[in-house]
């Protein structure tokens, strides 16, 4: 796998997601648009403090059909979910040392959008984070969490 947060890393991650039939089956059919905001918090060396990496992911019938990094905040109109959290939290999830549900519950990571659908497809959430947490395949050129 490539270095974390590089375009190649996201490309590889999304290819991995698209290759998993269990995801395609568990993701509700239809169109879903998700913004992910990775906020530099001074702990992660991959996102400078005070900056945010803005990603947009577009799913159609269980497959990722588009993903790209935005220079600014992804416009909220038409989005289904916006996930926001500190870079060290996202790093921690990728490194499998942070539980995504736990940080969602304690508000460290915020999820905006209609949670009803996620609740009705609860298995899907686990599988998506399972794909994200490919720590063994991710390169950490500037060091790996937990950060000192």
């Amino acid at each position, binding site marked *: 796998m490539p270095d974390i947060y590089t375009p190649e890393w996201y490309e590889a991650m999304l290819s991995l997601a698209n290759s998993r039939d269990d995801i395609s089956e568990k993701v509700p059919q239809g169109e879903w648009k998700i913004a992910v905001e990775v906020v530099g918090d001074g702990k992660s060396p991959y996102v400078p403090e005070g900056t945010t990496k803005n990603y947009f992911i577009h799913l159609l019938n269980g497959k990722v059909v588009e993903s790209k990094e935005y220079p600014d905040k992804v416009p909220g109109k038409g989005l289904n*979910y916006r996930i926001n959290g500190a870079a060290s939290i996202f790093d921690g999830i990728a490194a499998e040392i942070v539980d995504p549900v736990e940080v969602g519950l304690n508000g460290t990571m915020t999820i905006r959008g209609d949670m009803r659908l996620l609740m009705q497809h609860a298995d899907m959430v686990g599988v998506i984070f399972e794909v994200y947490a490919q720590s063994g395949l991710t390169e950490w050129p500037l060091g790996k969490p937990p950060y000192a």
Partner: protein
Amino acid sequence: MNKETYDAIVIGAGHNGMALSTYLGKSGWNVLVLERRLEEGGGLSTELYTESGFLHNLHSNYHTFVGLCPVYDDLDLVAEPDGVTYAHPPVQMGSIFADGTAITVHTDMAKTHASFSRFSKKDADTFLRLHKEVKGFQDLMIRTLMYAPPIDVNDITKALATWKVEDKTEFFRAKLRSMTINDFLNQHFENEKVKAMLAFHGAVCGYYTDVVGLAVSFPFMLGKIDNWKLCIGGSHRLAHALWRQMRRAGVTLLPAAPVGEILLEDGRASGVRLEDGTEFYADKLVASSVDLEQTFGKMLPAGAVPKETREEVESYKYQDGSLFTVHMAMHKVPTYKAASFDPDINQAWVLNIGYACLEDYSRDWAAIRKGEVPEEPRLNVAINSMFDPTDAPEGKATGMIRVFAPYSVDNKGPEVWSTPFKDVYAQKCVDKMLEHCDGFKQEDIWVQRPYTPKDISDKLVNMVDGDWMVGSISESNLMLNRPSPSLSQYRTPVKDLYLCGSTTHPHGFITFGPGYNALQAIAEDFDLDTWWVEI
């Protein structure tokens, strides 16, 4: 005969009907709102009830969803130049006990912790952990569980199990579904006064502490224990703000226009006929924000809905009790003897005077269910003038005492509230407050005037049996069960007839949830551009 056609007709200009119509108007629809009363606002009612210059909120007084409910932002209700202003009292609430002690709940949780610690350090720590835990997912859950059409509670429970939420939280448990608020408090807290203070928060929100299943909502409620806000100039100002936005959205509001009948054409709701015979037509839909009996029993012809729906409507349950209020025009703001124990009690907005343990609540609920007026009134006191100097003449104060009370007294009917009994009981309530006051005497109350459970229903017929929550708060009448499984998604068996009032999920109170959620159903059915959804 007047015949006008609109895209949508909304029956009832309470806050839910007003909000829904404004959203639809802003979506480009031509909307008519018809209101039985002489003014808009429903429960957002403020009147000069005692004396000229003294503003009294006759129904809604506590607005606890400002900042949590999307409607305020979507419709610019708190924005410049003409939105409402809210006061956020630093000492949100307090309890005064017979032994002269007091507890206070602050917007500053460190101060709340300090107050609770005087009774139990363990409880203070527990409360802080609970509050922090709930704050983490409060916004997410409120938007999911209140500001979206309801889903099956079993789906929620299943998701929480899949995500192993119980292993990751201290207070969130599936078994809360089979517990009362009393059970929850007894499980986690040790001091009766702390429990009484926290239970008071639930009770004032309409959540009876002994109803099985309500423990599941209680942690969320405690998460907003520091979000009690007062509408400056009276709650009716919020209705004014809504009305201004309705006008800007091109919505037509007709007061004094009671709907007598919902018109049907080819099985769809096609318009309404007023009691005076005037007809208005709707190309797209009719939405009713009034109660089920009015909608299905009086406005629709017999046979318009299936027998099962009729039966569901007829078996709809209202709250066991109502509220009896004494509105007061005062020469000054009361202060309390318990201030020698906790000076902050004199700054508390909402006061519990009388509930010292959970058993006190249970006794009152039991009495009310039997139709008995609690012999010893336990009070909910609010002196709005402490935070809103506009609601009384300079140097004077407006205040109110509320107690839980039955609609029908001793099974003799609500008419008992029209007899001198109401004044006798009002004095009893005032006396109870005065017992705890320090230097504030009967003569400091210029005028006191009761407002009874019967008055509630007489003014707002929607609030059947004086029920300001417009339906019981119990597991069998929340989420998918409110008002019934077949009506829970805001649609009805009559094509193009929707429900948007407080009989629907989540419930009464100034949540805006019913109107907002009906909008989601309507948007889906009519393929509306959901401009209000900005994730």
